[in-house]
């Protein structure tokens, strides 16, 4: 089974806890340490040694201090080394403006944060499908 290396970028401690409680038991995922915002992710990625593997999937919260989801997306896509990592946005609320903007910036998917465990699992299944396809949405 291929194991997908996932980074969550999320400032909300509750959402972070939920994420780990739902996904730490999944065998198809390797959960990398979570980042509290885009700046932390940027530092983490830039400090990876050349022989260390990059994450396969980056899940970005939209609303974060210092560097929000869209800004982080812009950084990732502008950097040759990270541009091919599948990056998705998940947010409490997504209106058509946010969706179009994130898509334009290169988000593989824009998802509304689920409110049930079942919803979380479905969301992750969707993300993993995109990773397998290499980023182009169905």
């Amino acid at each position, binding site marked *: 089974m291929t194991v997908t290396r996932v980074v969550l970028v999320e400032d*909300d401690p509750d959402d972070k806890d939920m994420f780990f409680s739902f996904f730490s038991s999944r065998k198809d995922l390797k959960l990398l340490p979570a980042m509290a915002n885009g700046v932390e992710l940027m530092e983490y990625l830039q400090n990876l040694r050349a022989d260390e593997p990059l994450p396969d999937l980056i899940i970005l919260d939209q609303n974060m201090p210092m560097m929000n989801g869209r800004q982080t997306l812009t950084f990732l896509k502008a950097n040759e080394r990270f541009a091919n990592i599948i990056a998705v946005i998940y947010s*409490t609320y997504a209106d058509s403006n946010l969706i179009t903007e994130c898509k334009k910036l290169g988000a593989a998917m824009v998802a509304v944060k689920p409110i049930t465990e079942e919803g979380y699992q479905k969301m992750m299944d969707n993300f993993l499908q995109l990773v397998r396809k290499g980023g182009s949405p169905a």
Partner: protein
Amino acid sequence: MGPQSSTRALQAEVDALKQQLEEANDTLDAIRSGQIDALVVKGEDGHALYTLRSADHTYRIFVEEMTEGAVTLNSTGLILFSNAQFAAMVRQPLSEVLGCPFIDFVATADRPLFGRVLLAAWQDSAKREEVLLCDTDSLPVQLSLKVLTFDGDKTLSVIITDLTQQKKTEAELKNKNEQLETLNNALLSSNHDLQQFASVASHDLQEPLRKIQVFSNFLQERSYHLLPDSSKHFVEKIISASNRMKTLIVDILTYSRLSANDAAPEVVDLRILVEEIIDDFDLKIVERNAVIEVGELPAVEGNRGQLRQVFYNLLSNALKFSTADRVPYISITAKAVHAVELGVALLNEEEYCHITVRDNGIGFDEKFADAIFGLFEKLHHKSTFEGSGIGLAIAKKIIDKHHGLILAKSIPGEGSAFSIILPLKQTNLR
């Protein structure tokens, strides 16, 4: 007297007669061109004065009586003629005005301008220009200059129009326009603030609300069996209340965003639109055994997403407010109407459609027929019928934006009918 001297005498006589003839011709020309209005003729009883009472006289009076100033300038810019009105404009006696250079009456600051205008007027014949007269108590005037030619002699006639009143009106108008612009900007910014507020408030409200939803769901999914029966009920209450809150917030956001985006209208086939919505309601329709009939519906110009919302909200209401004791029957029909038949012209468009969405549900008291389109207006108790009370307000706002009308009629216990009148085209605006 020899023949030579008589020839010379005859020659002299001819010359004298020629001169007389020339003088007479000159006089005639002068009379014809209006250069003189009186003649002094040497007669047998000394000099006699003849004045001319011709068509010219009328014009002379006309020029004297008119409210504009009128002057004639010679080639050096001296005033040869002035009417009384011009003298009054420069507050001088007429006698002081005649023979003066016109430029003396122009305000110092405008003299270079007047010099150029004068020069141009001599060349192009006709000119208009605004200048100030007099340095103290200056008077804004418009000069209309025209070159008149009499036998190769050129004069410049100048009509001077007092612009005081016009300037005053212009200034007032400008002032009013500025006030209007300030107000308009204030209104725009307050509108913008309001939208921002609704949007930010709704976004920020959603974060904590989602937590309530998430954790109450967990409580129900994981620990429900541990709760005493008396508390299980509370969990359900929390879940249903937070779900209702979610609906409210999303609807407020939708409503506030309606004012913001204005896409260009497209052609929307209402029949296709309504059938799509009916597909969305499939489950509810089956659940309630509802019968929905869709008649011939036209294609109209408009915002597809917004029109979809109108029919979605109306159908949702029709299904929601059905009665338990009879099969819900909903019909959506349309007929073509003209502005004349409607008795209303909402824009420069003649062709409208009148769409009726009718149901046999619980209905409402018609005294609330206007109120139901207000924000958060709910006629029915929330425990019986869920919803935010924004659906019809959104529908009305959308129809308003499409230059249409939405009206409600009902008989309590028998059903309601919503009428939508929409122009077929949005392009004939203004």
